[in-house]
């Protein structure tokens, strides 16, 4: 690893810790600097830029930095890290993919990941000085070493007092994630008995699995005031899928957490920062927002230009915390532009063409 990437990490961690305001010039300078470093150190990214005939010398604004398609993480080693420096790899989730995306990390890159995720999580979901407890519906990171989500929840656990965070997820024999619903119920009962607010964190399919069990047993929990829910991710065929509004209504009905205390998280293994949206609040807050060190743009799939307010396109993210891979990433997620943020609509690759096709072949 080049010392300059490390120097950059130190500066970005400083930027994160101060939660520096979004000054356009400051962000732009950091983005261009990181682009130059990654262009040098990341071979697949440099090849991609070269094919587009773009290089640091010809790019003057962060919006012009070539965004690498997220799919590149499936076929190539999109990293600035030498093989010996890679101490951890996060894989994209999903059960049907032959080649999962791989995002390589080192000790240094994980430090940045943790700093970035904690700062924004504390600001958006659960303050660091909160006396409350948290229940994760995912497996613990020790059980799911390739999950960036489990790693994130592990980092949140490590930042809170011992015992404050519990994991009720586990691995089924197939390797798929499932929720130990009895354990989840036990933790909820304890929080209700002690009248301690509880933050419940999980994937949408984890929630559906648990809430369906509660509904089948006619159980309605009533979590104490101040409790919150953070829900993330799609279903990927692992539970019945239902519209987000129905999931949120079910959460309110079965856990007693009101809509304004439900937060949605958008994250992917290829990124180091997350975006959050708060359900049941103002239109501005209902949109997803990244922290000041990452920016989202919604790009017209048809023309490649930025879409106008309220229009639909593909989400592109520039994440300065993605120091050792690539900062500018073109996702396959369809989003609606909402102010500085976005509303999530779904995954383009799953959108079905209306013609005769046998998608299974792809």
């Amino acid at each position: 690893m080049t010392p300059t990437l490390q120097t950059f990490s130190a500066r970005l961690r400083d930027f994160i810790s101060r939660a520096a305001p979004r000054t356009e010039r400051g962000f732009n300078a950091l983005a261009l600097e990181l682009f130059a470093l990654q262009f040098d150190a990341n071979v697949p990214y440099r090849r991609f830029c070269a094919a587009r005939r773009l290089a640091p010398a010809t790019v003057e604004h962060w919006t012009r930095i070539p965004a690498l398609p997220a799919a590149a993480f499936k076929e190539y080693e999109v990293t600035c890290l030498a093989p010996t420096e890679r101490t951890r790899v996060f894989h994209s989730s999903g059960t049907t993919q032959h080649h999962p995306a791989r995002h390589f990390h080192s000790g240094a890159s994980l430090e940045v990941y943790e700093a970035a995720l904690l700062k924004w999580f504390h600001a958006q979901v659960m303050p660091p000085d909160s006396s409350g407890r948290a229940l994760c519906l995912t497996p613990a990171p020790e059980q799911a070493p390739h999950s960036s989500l489990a790693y994130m929840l592990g980092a949140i656990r490590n930042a809170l007092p011992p015992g404050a965070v519990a994991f009720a997820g586990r691995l089924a024999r197939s390797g798929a994630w499932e929720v130990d619903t009895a354990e989840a119920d036990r933790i909820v009962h304890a929080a209700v008995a002690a009248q301690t607010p509880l933050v419940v964190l999980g994937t949408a399919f984890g929630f559906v699995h648990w809430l369906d069990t509660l509904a089948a047993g006619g159980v309605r929990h009533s979590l104490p005031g101040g409790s919150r829910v953070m829900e993330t991710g799609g279903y990927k065929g692992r539970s019945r899928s239902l519209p987000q509004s129905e999931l949120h209504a079910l959460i309110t009905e079965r856990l007693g957490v009101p809509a304004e205390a439900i937060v949605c998280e958008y994250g992917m293994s290829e990124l180091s920062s997350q975006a959050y949206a708060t359900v049941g609040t103002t239109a501005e807050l209902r949109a997803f927002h990244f922290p000041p060190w990452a920016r989202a743009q919604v790009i017209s799939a048809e023309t490649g230009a930025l879409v106008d307010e309220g229009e639909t396109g593909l989400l592109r993210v520039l994440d300065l915390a993605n120091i050792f891979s690539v900062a500018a990433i073109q996702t396959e997620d369809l989003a609606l532009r909402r102010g500085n943020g976005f509303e999530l609509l779904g995954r383009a690759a799953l959108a079905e063409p209306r013609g005769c096709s046998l998608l299974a072949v792809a």
Partner: protein
Amino acid sequence: MISMNLPNFFLADLGADAALTPGTITEACATLRRNREHYLQGRSTGGLIRLLCEVAENWLQPDYPLRQRALEEGPATLGFSAPTLARGLDACFRQFTPEQFHALLTQELGHAGRLDGFSATSDEDRQRRASLARGPELLAHIAAGNLPVPALMSLALGLLVRSAQFLKCASGTALLPRLFAHSIYEADAKLGACLEIAEWAGGHELLEEALFAEADCVTATGSDETLAAIERRLPRRARFLGYGHRVSFAYVTAEVLRGAGAQRVAARAAADVAAWNQLGCLSPHVLYVEQGGTPPEQFSELLAQALDALEAVEPRGPLSPAEAAVIASRRSFYEVRAAHSPETLHWASQGSTAWTVIFEADPQFQASCLNRFLYVKLAPSLTQVLRSAELVRGKVSTVGLAAPPERARELAMELARWGVPRICPLGEMQSPPLAWRHDGRPALADLVTWTDWET
């Protein structure tokens, strides 16, 4: 959309929001049966053919009001540009000639008079036999939404076998069948009274059960799951003809790519990709190219130019953001691959998703995301191509072939042995003749029931 200058004659005329009930369907079916008995059963084959040809001739006239209306309303409701629609409709209606109908009847029934009365081929005559074919009294069609012409063909064939017909269209796709039915109604109101067109979202069980309870035969086009779901719900007495989704590809030999031929071949391939925006089962996903003529990479570039030229005169038309996103994401994927390997190349329309050509040396069959997105792949030999298309064996509809006459027969034999039901010249993949056997099944013969008379 309620028509201002067309009578409200079919259920689909009442608009997509018309509240249909099972009772409406049952009643419509009873009317259809009655009208068939009075107005259709006794018609002659010759008379029906004359009428269908006359209607088709109208549709081919640029100033025919129903055609004009299809081209005006079609782009917004169906998503095809007016020139794309016009080319597709012309290809379909040009097939409606007395000669083609005659060929269809003799191919399918052995004798053109079978539907009129007892008739016999000379062989049968010698054996003192004569036969008569009858179509189902009430024929129901469940049409897929991807393109409009198969439903028009179904209606024409149904009329020929004297069936009253109920055509159920997928949501938002009734426009062309409705206009076609109106053109028949205009030409012969009594025949029009033997047709019903309705539109509802597939899977509306109560409406469909009412229809299935009345139909003697049900045809359906759609995914394998849709077909299986329909077949499960049919009463035992109804015959079922299901046409599943299929894929197609093209095969170009080295010989036809020598000299100036390459450009002509590219233009024909582009026409196949642009027809119905590649959304039909007969549209090519992949074009396989042999080496030895114009290098395949160079041929891909010619194809890109041909698609670009076609876009100017026959634009693809706008897509929803979700459909465009599928193309954009797939293009991105190949852009990265192309940056890493000389064995992948890509060409794409500038500032739009109008057309895309991906060249890959790897012959592995790849399903396209369609809407004019074509794969060009190296063909070491037809045998190897078929090996790499093993995943879609039995699911292929058409192979568009560009080959010199001295090789064409041998290639056709190999394709036939592998199970391809239709082989046609490149450039005509989306223009099957009237007598085409859909998925290798008889066009008319599957519809009829026979009476044999041994004298």
